[in-house]
């Protein structure tokens, strides 16, 4: 099991032990899973991510990577080769004179031999859709925002971690950029990496996640498959969270007499379901009023 959290809590100071940033979170991930984390601003998401990659040690509970407790001395050495973490707007961490040197930073810190570093850099660039000949020796600061983001993500991927933590990877990108990046992330997941992603896009979460964790004020509000978690749109709205647009729409229609399933996350599927209900006259009222 690549990642497990056992009753993890974290307080930033000794003063707020009773209102910790993260309170009693437990979860377990299998290889290749995709965990989506959602929660309002300040709900503890960033803190939780930092606990998962060893940047913070829990004040209570355990974080286990491949069964090893992160708080034991020595397990955090080279943890970046097991768990990679990309912060929000990761392009702000770029510093090297060239793209390949920046991407090589992680592997170099891990002490990989030169040949392996080259290989990892090329693989990472390929995974993020960066053409080697075109980008390798450019300065990161010459690139566009979207390109810089891909370079930064390649830099995290290059250490070859089996778990990848992404904090709002599509933040600030235009819709086309968002779609392309989510497609890339999906491909990385399919290739075998375990993904943990914080996102405010319920659609992305619904379409990709195998598990969803909903945080509210540091504690776990809900935890399950997307279908389970998004089945309660009203409860989620009460804690300032939404549901995928299709679910919200279906839920609203259901309040007016429809009986639509809430686990349809594509517009086409929902449209088909609505058409089916209209045809069989299940609305119980004037279908023109809808």
């Amino acid at each position, binding site marked *: 099991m690549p990642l497990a959290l056992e009753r993890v809590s974290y307080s*930033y100071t000794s003063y707020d032990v009773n209102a910790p940033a993260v309170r009693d979170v437990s979860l377990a991930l299998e290889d290749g899973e995709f965990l989506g984390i959602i929660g309002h601003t300040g709900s503890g998401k*960033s*803190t939780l991510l*930092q606990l998962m*990659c060893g*940047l913070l040690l829990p004040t209570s509970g355990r974080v286990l990577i491949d069964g090893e407790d992160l708080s034991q001395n020595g397990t955090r050495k*080279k*943890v*970046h*080769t097991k768990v*990679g*973490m990309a*912060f929000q707007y*990761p392009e*702000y*961490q*770029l*510093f*090297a004179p060239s793209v390949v040197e920046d991407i090589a*930073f*992680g592997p170099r*810190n*891990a002490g990989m031999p030169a040949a392996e570093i080259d290989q990892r850099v090329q693989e990472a660039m390929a995974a993020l859709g960066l053409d080697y000949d075109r980008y390798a020796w450019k300065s990161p*600061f010459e690139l566009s925002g979207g390109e810089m983001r891909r370079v930064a993500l390649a*830099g*995290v991927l290059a*250490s070859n971690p089996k778990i990848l933590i992404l904090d709002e990877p599509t933040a600030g990108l235009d819709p086309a950029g968002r779609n392309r990046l989510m497609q890339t992330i999906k491909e990385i997941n399919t290739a075998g990496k375990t993904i943990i992603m914080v996102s405010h896009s319920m659609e992305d979460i619904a379409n990709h996640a195998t598990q969803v964790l909903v945080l509210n004020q540091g504690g776990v509000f809900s935890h399950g498959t997307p279908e389970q978690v998004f089945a309660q749109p009203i409860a989620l709205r009460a804690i300032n969270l939404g549901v995928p647009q299709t679910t919200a729409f279906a839920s609203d229609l259901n309040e007016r007499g429809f009986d639509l399933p809430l686990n349809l996350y594509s517009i086409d599927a929902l449209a088909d379901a609505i058409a089916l209900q209209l045809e069989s006259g299940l609305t119980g009222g004037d279908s023109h009023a809808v």
Partner: protein
Amino acid sequence: MPYEVAIGQYYNINSLIHRLDPRIKLTLLLVFIIATFFVSTLPGLLVPLLFLLLVIALSRVPFSTVLKAIAPISFIFIFPLLFNFFFISSGQELLHWGPILVTDEGLWRGFFMTLRLFLLFLSANVLMLTTSSIALCDAVGSMLKPFERFGVPSFEISMMLSIALRFIPTLLEDFDRVRKAQLARGANLNSGGPIARIKALVPLLVPMFAQSFRHAEDLAYAMESRCYHGGSNRTHYHLLKIELRDYLAVIVVAILLVVSIIWL
């Protein structure tokens, strides 16, 4: 994540001292420090000390808060003590231990220098506690204004000061982010010889510079789009006015200065 930074330790309450004009406070601090340097005897220093205690009382800042702010650098006070204990050889011998000689005069001078240093830090601290950084920037800008005829860009300097102060928390946040991002890629910031450690700073400093330029550019656009074009004929929202309490403060400190020169 909220990033709490107390800039200049400003203690935000409303007291007589807080309400004094910041330019007056800055000037009087200087005069006070000069006055303490005119005092030549240890008992004489008690007068400025009492004055300062009175100011602290009027400022309604808890004395413990005032002292806590000095605590981090309190080790400095050891030096004048040690220096005068061991290197003054005139006066009556009190203690002779090998090469170390302590005389009564050495003792007096030691305490004297230490107390004076203490007054210096304490008074500067009181200023910082009772004057917000904005007020200080306004004060500096206003006091530099007469030098404009000599080409000193007083308004630009004042603006630079307040922008720099305003960005301290932001840059601290940026630094925290960059540091964590590089740590998450296995950066080793803590070990290795001096050369290795300096090289380890590059992944921190370059992004900080880049980020600073981004902030500057964004801020410049924001200011320009609100028709900022510099210049000293901008009006102020907060006007600094000298009130009766400021005149009284000047009189009191002037008396202190005269007394220090003539009697103490």
